[in-house]
């Protein structure tokens, strides 16, 4: 098949070039790619934070943070997200040990905490809109609803993703592809918690202090 190359004088050593790229195992670059996506998501949130920073003081003679924000509710919300972070961590540890049932259990608990977070946030939004402090009221409220709403939307899609993966794990077990997906969601979930640190600090706490 591959006959040795005969050079003219028969002494020259043939030089080979590797034309094809060497093989990458499937999914070997997924984590880096997903990290890059998270970084671009980070830029979206940075822009929304900047918008809130600029417009956060424009109340248009409407209600301000002191009138609207209930810090006890925000503290409860923060606790929910923090609990969901540690339970997702437990799910990852169980996944590493290859235990399907306890992985599913911790994922389910994580989803419930996420759902509780979302319900509290929707209750807060509903309460504010009911008091006439909807996003149309002032620039402050527009930027508030955009920033916090975008975060809430991320959590919503995170929960949908979580349920999808629970179904996947239930059907196919902890195969390598599912482990990779769970690791991506892990990064996504913890990333949302990082963004929430910014939200409760700069929007709620500093808003009340303003």
């Amino acid at each position, binding site marked *: 098949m591959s006959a040795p190359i005969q050079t003219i004088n028969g002494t020259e050593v043939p030089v080979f070039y590797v034309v094809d790229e060497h093989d990458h*195992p499937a999914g*070997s*670059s997924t*984590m*880096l790619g997903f*990290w*890059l996506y998270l*970084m671009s998501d*980070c*830029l979206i949130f*940075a*822009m929304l*934070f*900047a*918008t809130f*920073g*600029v417009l956060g003081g424009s109340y248009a003679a409407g209600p301000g943070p002191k009138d609207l924000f209930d*810090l*006890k509710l*925000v*503290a409860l919300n*923060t*606790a929910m997200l*923090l609990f969901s*972070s*540690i339970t997702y*961590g*437990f799910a*990852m*540890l169980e996944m*590493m040990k290859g235990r399907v049932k306890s992985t599913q259990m911790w994922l389910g608990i994580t989803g419930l905490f996420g759902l509780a977070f979302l319900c509290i946030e929707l209750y807060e939004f509903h309460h504010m809109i009911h008091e006439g402090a909807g996003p149309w009221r002032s620039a402050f409220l527009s930027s508030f609803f955009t920033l916090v709403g975008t975060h809430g939307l991320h959590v919503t899609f995170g929960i949908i993703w979580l349920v999808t993966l629970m179904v996947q794990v239930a059907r196919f077990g902890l195969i390598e592809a599912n482990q990779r997906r769970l690791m991506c969601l892990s*990064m996504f979930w*913890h*990333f949302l*918690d*990082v963004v929430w*640190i*910014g939200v*409760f*600090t*700069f929007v709620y*706490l*500093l808003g*009340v*202090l303003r």
Partner: protein
Amino acid sequence: MSADAHAAHGHGHDDHGHDDGRDHGSMKSYLIGFFLSVVLTAIPFWLVMTNAIENKNWTIAIIVAFAVVQIVVHMIYFLHMNTTSDAGWTMMALIFTIIIVVIALSGSLWVMYHLNVNMMPVHDMRNMP
């Protein structure tokens, strides 16, 4: 001697030959991260809800400092950031993002603040020539 070195190297690694430098965390690291996060969250809320410090600027400075520390804690203990995963490219991406975020945030706030100040009708027109 070399056998010892091999044993030391082999310890703690999985059997897959290609080590990507990723850290998947342990029960201990998750619990440390959680404990630190709870403390770093509770103190700012307590400071604001009880007005523990009279000086508002000090409260703001402390809260922002706690937020920055907590973000770093999350990065290390929950997102398992280190300088070796994917040959350092995750860290490079993070540093690049932080630079862009700092420029965009500080730039927006700075420019818009001055624009705002200069647009305010605070000049006393009566003394104008």
